[in-house]
């Protein structure tokens, strides 16, 4: 499914997440309440937030799940976002660090079962995990690998839990931290988040905070694609400017027009507004953007942002689980109008107005964040590519003749189970 060169990695910092270093010293045992409380306080002090996209404080989630007598830990390495590769790269580079983090998390919440969830199509990560699991000697906790359907929604936590419980990988209205695997409280944590939990357990909060900003501490994995010399995955310090992040991937190969930040759920921003801003949520929020799963795609001047967005919106629409009325009807309508807008031949002001009305009707309406994510992408495209919209209306389309920048899988993995 993924067309990226996964071996390409670049790092701005002494790599920890991607180092592949196997620690010899045993993990903290945490058998006493006081030990658990101390480590939880350390994780809280570190300011670690989820690396799966939503950015929720990890310590709070761990505390909520620890209320169950036998909860479950799920390491979410499914990474269904077609343009993102950071979790796949992490799992291959450093599977033991992810498992270390899952084991620490299991000890913190009192779980005896850890599920390592990966995409079925991700053979390299599955092989790395299988090798690593065979080498583990963790006491008191069972590890199992679960190969989930390779599709966008399978990584949404309630969908993943529903699939682990024998259902389709479609979202539910259950919140896994309340009712998850086997109906128990379940800690679903992105694999990069867990790798950081392991590092914090070994080195402490101050060590974690030596990188990053006060509000967004730590190192982070990024996937950088598009018009850059060496696209791939790297480890950066949060707070570097976008220009510095891009430089790490060999710099740009063309004049940039816009950046897509955060993924297909993300936001378009114009290049000249953002190139020298810090790569943090705090600095990008005023522009309506967030880092999401830390994906940055450089759209070159000669690409068509409308055509690119149209393809992605159609992709997202096809990923809908079709369970919620506003998502099923709304995303199909949005994809259709956007395609017409991108191919010229519609009255632009009417199409833009229609899109705004549709967006308002899908935002925040679904059981999951898919419609809201798609709405955000469309809204930002209308803003950032406003001039292209006028040009399309005046002179027809440019898109199909131009190169394609955003990877969209042609063949849909149609399986929900």
């Amino acid at each position: 499914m993924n067309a990226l060169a996964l071996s390409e990695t670049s790092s701005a910092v002494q790599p920890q997440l991607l180092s592949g270093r196997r620690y010899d010293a045993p993990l903290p045992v945490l058998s006493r309440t006081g030990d658990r409380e101390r480590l939880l306080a350390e994780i809280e002090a570190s300011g670690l937030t989820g690396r799966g996209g939503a950015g929720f404080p990890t310590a709070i989630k761990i505390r909520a799940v620890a209320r169950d007598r036998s909860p479950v830990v799920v390491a979410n390495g499914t990474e269904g976002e077609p343009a993102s590769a950071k979790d796949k790269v992490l799992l291959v580079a450093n599977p033991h660090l992810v498992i270390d983090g899952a084991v620490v998390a299991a000890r913190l919440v009192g779980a005896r079962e850890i599920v390592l969830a990966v995409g079925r199509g991700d053979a390299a990560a599955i092989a790395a995990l299988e090798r690593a699991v065979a080498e583990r000697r963790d006491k008191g906790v069972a590890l199992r690998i679960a190969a989930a359907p390779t599709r966008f929604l399978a990584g949404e936590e309630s969908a993943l839990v529903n699939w682990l419980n024998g259902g389709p990988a479609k979202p539910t209205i259950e919140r896994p931290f309340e009712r998850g695997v086997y109906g128990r409280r379940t800690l679903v944590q992105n694999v990069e988040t867990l790798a950081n939990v392991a590092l914090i357990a070994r080195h402490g909060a101050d060590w974690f905070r030596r990188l990053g900003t006060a509000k967004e501490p730590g190192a982070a994995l990024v996937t950088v694609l598009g018009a850059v010399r060496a696209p791939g995955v790297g480890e950066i310090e949060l707070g570097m400017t976008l220009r510095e992040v891009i430089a790490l991937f060999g710099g740009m190969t063309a004049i940039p027009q816009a950046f897509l930040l955060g993924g297909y759920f993300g936001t378009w921003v114009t290049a000249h507004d953002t190139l020298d801003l810090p790569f943090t949520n705090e600095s990008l929020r005023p522009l309506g953007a967030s880092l999401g799963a830390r994906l940055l795609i450089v759209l070159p001047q000669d690409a068509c942002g409308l055509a690119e967005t149209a393809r992605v919106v159609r992709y997202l629409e096809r990923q809908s689980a079709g369970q919620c009325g506003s998502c099923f009807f709304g995303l199909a309508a949005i994809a259709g109008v956007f395609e017409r807008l991108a191919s010229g031949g519609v009255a632009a002001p009417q199409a833009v107005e229609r899109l705004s009305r549709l967006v308002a009707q899908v935002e925040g309406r679904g059981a999951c964040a898919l419609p809201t994510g798609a709405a955000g992408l469309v809204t930002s495209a209308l803003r950032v590519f406003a001039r292209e919209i006028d040009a399309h209306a005046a002179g027809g389309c440019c898109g199909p003749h131009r190169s394609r920048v955003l990877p969209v899988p042609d063949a849909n993995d149609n399986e929900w189970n």
Partner: protein
Amino acid sequence: MSRHIRVDPILCDGFGQCAELLPELVELDEWGYPIVSDAPIPASLGAEARRAVAMCPRLALALEERRAREPAGAAP
């Protein structure tokens, strides 16, 4: 704490009865699915709200107590 109406968008099939019973808090989108107001249910509409919840053919509506500023379905 305040009381709100919540719709389960997966269960909902767009019958639209709720919008008829409780137009003050529910409007329908262009496909007939309810857009439920985020505002607390005013005391004057308590009975209508309970009725709308009880009459939903798909049992997709619920009354929900929310703490101040807690959005529906938020993470823990």
